[in-house]
């Protein structure tokens, strides 16, 4: 009996700190996700507001650059159009949608938060949750495997099942034919 208590105690000694660490990590990740979803600090000056929208748009001419970074004249004209739109009171989303109406969704550098684009926002969180779940289940399985055979054969903790069976056979032979 004391043997079995000894068998289970080492299995639990590291469990509580591990769970605690997992909880801390998840809370930290949740906080990070909340901050990321909120986005950067809102721009204040007109130039900053134009820049904020321009960094999210792809230059149609130099397609690996944002409209904010591209030296192409068309990008310059797009920035000018964004400034005009803001001055006229249009919302950033409305301005973005104007470009999408002309160029299609591919003009957005940041995936739209609806339709297929939603996958880009949701998938990482889902994969992380799935990974954490898989890790928890695996840990639980290892602990169960470690604890179960201790009930059948009295032996030192941490002995694998194969070793226990070998031990049982050796003991049986010993009892049949003692030296």
């Amino acid at each position, binding site marked *: 009996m004391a043997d079995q208590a000894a068998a289970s105690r080492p299995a639990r000694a590291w469990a509580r700190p591990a769970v605690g660490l997992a909880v801390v990590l998840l809370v930290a990740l949740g906080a990070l996700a909340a901050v990321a979803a909120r986005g950067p600090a809102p721009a204040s000056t007109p130039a900053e507001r134009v820049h904020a929208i321009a960094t999210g748009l792809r230059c*149609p*001419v130099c397609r690996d650059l944002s409209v904010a970074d591209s030296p192409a*004249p*068309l990008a310059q*004209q*797009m920035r*000018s*159009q964004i400034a005009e739109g803001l001055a006229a009171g249009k919302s950033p989303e409305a301005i973005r949608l*104007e*470009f*999408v*109406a*002309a*160029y*299609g969704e*591919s003009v957005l550098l940041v995936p739209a938060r609806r339709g297929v684009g939603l996958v880009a926002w949701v998938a990482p969180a889902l994969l992380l949750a799935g990974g954490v779940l898989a890790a928890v289940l695996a840990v639980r399985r290892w602990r169960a495997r470690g604890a179960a055979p201790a009930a059948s054969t009295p032996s030192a903790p941490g002995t*694998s*099942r*194969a070793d226990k*069976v*070998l031990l049982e*056979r*050796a003991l049986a*032979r010993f009892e049949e*034919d003692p*030296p």
Partner: protein
Amino acid sequence: MMTGGARTEAPPAGAAGGQGRPRRALLLGAVVAAVALAAWLLSTGLQRDPTAIRSPLLGRPAPDFALRTLDGDRTVRLGDLRGRVVVVNFWASWCAECRVEHPALSAAWNRFRDAGVMLVGVDFQDDHPSALAYLAGTGTGWPVVADPGSRTALAYGVYGIPETFVIGPDGRVTAKHVGPVTYDQLVREITRVLPEGSGRQPGAPAAGSP
């Protein structure tokens, strides 16, 4: 004194080997499936032409514009042209490919102008004197307008010239062509939307005739 027990025994079948085999097969199957999926995605994705971007304007009402001709003579307003087929061609004097398509545009203009088809050239990121010299040099008969700030080009989703749009009598964009357009392509796209009996040039077959 212990003499026996030195025999080594193979571990029983219940140990690490047998139990893991179906699980290992499952894992292998999952890896194979994931690799196959990735390979399929790459093969279809890499074959796609990234430059063949389908215009979101197709089938939608063409963005309106009211632009002044280069010689300052008049204003061309798209709204005024409702009921006619309109071909909008974005070009510039510095654009070599635009020179390539100019004869095709000219031939289509001559063929269809009496049928009420309107051709409008929109100058794109050009300087005025160069554009005027180009028009004089090529003998461009159709109206050509300036697009200050490229606002119209942006509204039409122009990536790079030449780009040609065909707008039907109902005001909707029916075709977009990127790069130099040929005479045959123009004829096909215009006759596709030209109303029946619009008085084509003699010799040109009417739609539906054998």
